[in-house]
């Protein structure tokens, strides 16, 4: 069956079309993406890869043991995370069965290419770093970890040395250290200065901004990726705002594209230039959707970030 060509494009029309296309490509992209932009991504640790700014934590939320009902419920959360463009998932041997639950979910869903698996070594879990990583790989059912961190600096010298060896051997891709709750920042600073690490994980949220003083500028200067944990301060931040019925400021949408408190709190974190991603944890698909929406452009400007912090302070 033939399709007769009804319209022919003249040479003049083709040139006009090409010119218009080139002009469109030169337009600034951000305003066009306002409110409907894709998930924002950032480069990290000298890599060409980009990570989505919203990751997923597993502390408490993914420690469900062998309960089939809860295993399936958490698998749905992981599914939503990947469907919405998620990348980094962070866990630890300290989180009880969370690594096994990740293994269950990945087996059910298949391991997506976008997964950036982040684990930790933690002395009380027993065994050397190498043994812990091997065991955790089996629990996650993955071939390798993209990142292994020394949890809360426990025996960090021994563990970090072992992790560097494993990175050189290609067993793991990146190494890092973690802290939380603003603990041991001077030691973290010393390690960031003296050791060759790819990532640091620390607590950074709109009410805990100590890291802005020294650690975030240092990470920026040395090209170290930063993972922000406790973005909702263990859940208390968002719970308190909702309990008080605190309204979002009227300018929240216009200035930073925020429609919910999740948007407001997470966008504040991930819009800091030194932060690579935040790792909120949740047990619910709906909350996962809220979290992932917060990773979409537009992001607040430095002035808007200050206004956001002042507003929270005023509540």
């Amino acid at each position: 069956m033939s399709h007769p060509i009804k319209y022919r494009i003249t040479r003049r029309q083709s040139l006009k079309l090409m010119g218009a296309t080139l002009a469109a490509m030169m337009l600034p992209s951000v305003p066009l993406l306002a409110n409907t932009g894709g998930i924002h991504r950032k480069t990290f640790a000298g890599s060409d890869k980009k990570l989505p700014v919203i990751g997923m934590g597993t502390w408490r939320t993914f420690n469900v043991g062998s309960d089939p009902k809860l295993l399936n419920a958490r698998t749905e959360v992981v599914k939503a995370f990947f469907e919405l463009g998620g990348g980094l998932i962070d866990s630890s041997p300290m989180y009880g069965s969370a690594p096994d639950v990740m293994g269950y979910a990945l087996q059910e869903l298949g391991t997506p290419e976008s997964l950036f698996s982040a684990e930790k070594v933690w002395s009380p879990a027993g065994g050397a770093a190498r043994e812990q990583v091997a065991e955790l790989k089996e629990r996650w059912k993955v071939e390798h970890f993209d990142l292994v961190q020394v949890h809360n600096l426990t025996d960090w010298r021994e563990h970090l040395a072992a992790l560097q060896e494993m990175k050189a051997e290609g067993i793991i891709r990146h190494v890092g250290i973690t802290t939380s709750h603003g603990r041991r920042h001077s030691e973290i600073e010393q390690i960031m200065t003296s050791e060759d690490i790819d990532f640091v994980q620390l607590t950074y949220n709109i009410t805990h901004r100590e890291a802005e003083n020294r650690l975030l500028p240092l990470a920026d200067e040395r090209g170290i990726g930063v993972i922000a944990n406790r973005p909702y301060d263990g859940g208390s931040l968002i719970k308190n705002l909702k309990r008080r019925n605190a309204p979002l400021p009227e300018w929240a949408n216009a200035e930073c594209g925020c429609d919910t408190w999740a948007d407001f709190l997470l966008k504040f974190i991930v819009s800091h230039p030194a932060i690579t991603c935040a790792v909120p944890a949740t047990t619910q698909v709906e909350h996962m959707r809220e979290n992932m929406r917060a990773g979409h452009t537009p992001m607040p400007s430095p002035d808007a970030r200050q206004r956001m912090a002042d507003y929270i302070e005023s509540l």
Partner: protein
Amino acid sequence: MNAWTSYQLQDFIPFTAEVYFRLLERMGETFWPLHLLTLALGAATLALALRHSTRLACLLPSPVWAFVAVTFFFQRYAELNWAGGYVGYAFICQAVLLVVMTLTGWGIDKRPSHTSPPVVIGMTITLFGLIVMPLMAPMSGGSWYQAEVFGIHADPTAVTTLGLVLIMLRGLALWIAAIIPALWLVVSGLTLQALDSTGGAVLFAVLAIALVGLVWGSKR
């Protein structure tokens, strides 16, 4: 920042309330109708203690402690909390302790007086553990599988045993036999408090009343 003062109770509880209460429910689902047997064992222990067969009464809760150690702590709770295995060993120790006390007769009150304050307190706590605790979850909107029962779940096992030792034992032996149940109730009470459950306050109230009985009962 001082590292230790920055810790909160929640930082030591590695699971959510949903997971913990599902764990209790799963115990109910898995072992029903064993509940009837363990409750009968608890009631028999109380009856024997009050009828002055205290040595035999001291022995009966022992297998229950071993059962909870294995099925609750080793097989399930330890999946969620690395410290769960250690608590399991403590429950095994309590089982062994009750056997040792039965065999040696150490501290056993052969004729507990039904009117003495520690015995009255012990009876009240035992009945609370056997009858009231299983009803608390269903009465507050939970399912019957969530009912916490002596011999199946850790809290009513500890509460009921605390009541029973107040009836059966005196002097130092009473304190020794009360240590593990009381410590578990502290741990469990704090856990429930961190999970925003009112159950924690109930356990602390039981502990406070038991402490009065312990002080009274330690005077031979």
